[in-house]
């Protein structure tokens, strides 16, 4: 089972990212969960969403405490929280930032793969607004290989409708290409 945690801000659509991953996995015949962190947080506040993917039925109904993958949608969050909390060795940290992976400060001695995407720029260029929840999926797909770009196409188009969906797809594909993978 792969466990994913997403950090974002209220209104940024972290749950949608989790949802799309889960749906893509489910459509492939896998089992998956996606869910928010159930808070009363408002637009702007740091929020968390979760996702689990497995090839058998998932029977856990608790939050993700030990993520294998962490996605950070908002670069500003890095100064507020430790995105690697609970993460074991070999975890993958995917961050929306202009920085290169090696520029991202990680507690020394931890073997964590850092992946960076300049999602703000991509999203602003492709969607006109720095809404990065779909863009960041490109980074996720590239870094984990858990699902393919094609798997996410259908749920994405269903979610956003054809016109907007295709632009989101484009952004995601660009991120897939432009991602920087550390270590």
């Amino acid at each position: 089972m792969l466990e994913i945690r997403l950090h974002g801000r209220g209104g940024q659509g972290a749950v949608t990212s989790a949802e799309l991953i889960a749906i893509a996995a489910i459509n492939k015949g896998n089992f998956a969960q996606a869910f928010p962190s159930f808070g009363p947080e408002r637009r702007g506040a740091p929020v968390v969403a979760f996702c689990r993917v497995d090839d058998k039925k998932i029977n856990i109904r608790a939050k993700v405490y030990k993520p294998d993958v962490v996605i950070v949608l908002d670069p500003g969050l890095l100064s507020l929280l430790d995105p690697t909390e609970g993460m074991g060795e070999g975890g993958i940290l995917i961050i929306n930032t202009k920085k290169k992976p090696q520029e991202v400060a990680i507690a020394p001695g931890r073997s964590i793969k850092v992946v960076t995407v300049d999602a703000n720029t991509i999203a602003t260029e492709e969607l006109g607004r720095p809404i990065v929840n779909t863009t960041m999926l490109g980074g996720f797909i590239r870094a984990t290989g858990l699902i393919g770009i094609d798997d996410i196409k259908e749920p994405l188009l269903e979610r956003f409708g054809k016109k907007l969906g295709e632009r989101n797809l484009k952004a995601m594909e660009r991120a897939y290409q432009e991602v920087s993978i550390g270590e």
Partner: protein
Amino acid sequence: MDKFSVFSSRLVEKSENFTSGHRACQGCAEALAVRHVMKALGRDTIVAMSTGCMEIISSPLPLTSWRVPWIHNAFENSAAVISGCESGIKAMMRKGKIPAKKINFVAMGGDGATADIGMGALSGALERGHDMVYICYDNEAYMNTGIQRSSSTPYGASTTTSPAGKASIGQHTQKKNMAQIAVAHNIPYVATACSSFPFDLMEKVKSAAETPGAAYVHVLSVCPTGWRIPTQDAIKYGRLAVDSCVFPLYEVIEGKYRLSYKPYKKLALTEYLKGQGRFRHLTDKEIQLIQQRVDKDYERILRLSEEEE
């Protein structure tokens, strides 16, 4: 920006009885309205607040944004809770159990808490004539639970329970006129206000608090999240609502109407609607129809105010 505001900020109460650290959305003009109201009321105030955005964002145990005595009990009953506070203090003061002093008893709720689920409690409290002020923060939907329609949602607005769709224009009932319903209760003071006009708002809240008996203040409170507008435009949209006469500012004192603000130039409704995500789907024809209704309602208020002059 309303014309009085530029140089008179210094006249406004400085202390904040509703503190920073609350968790309202970025740019929440409902929280701003609360801030203004609390400035007007001052410390000798007891507040009973309904469940809703303002309650949730201000009171996550063990923290509170309130510096005055504050009670939250349920969603639909702040008018009744404040009735109890007022009655209790009144009796205890009369009996000498506690020293006499003027205290403002203020109930607050969103438009859902006021016009829908709390209508019964409010109507009862107004009728009994407690010495209280009821303040409705009208952001035109149930925002706390995620932008569901209320009876105060305007015709044509898309919300999560009145979504625009192939078979629906969105909200298909007219906005309930709470101020008018309060007037029909024959209470001594009713007013409409908006936090884009803070001086007017604060004056009205003070008048309401000074009125013996029950007073009602209806505050249009722009919610950028629910109206789907950029956060920085929260003040602007309140101004547009007033300037396009969608939401006229007036007082009704002992049944007599008084218009508080007459726009220099009445703006077209489109000014107000355009840019709001919740109205994006409306066609020109639909907007036309709504404009007619706005005109008619505004004329009525104008007529009533003039009659009294």
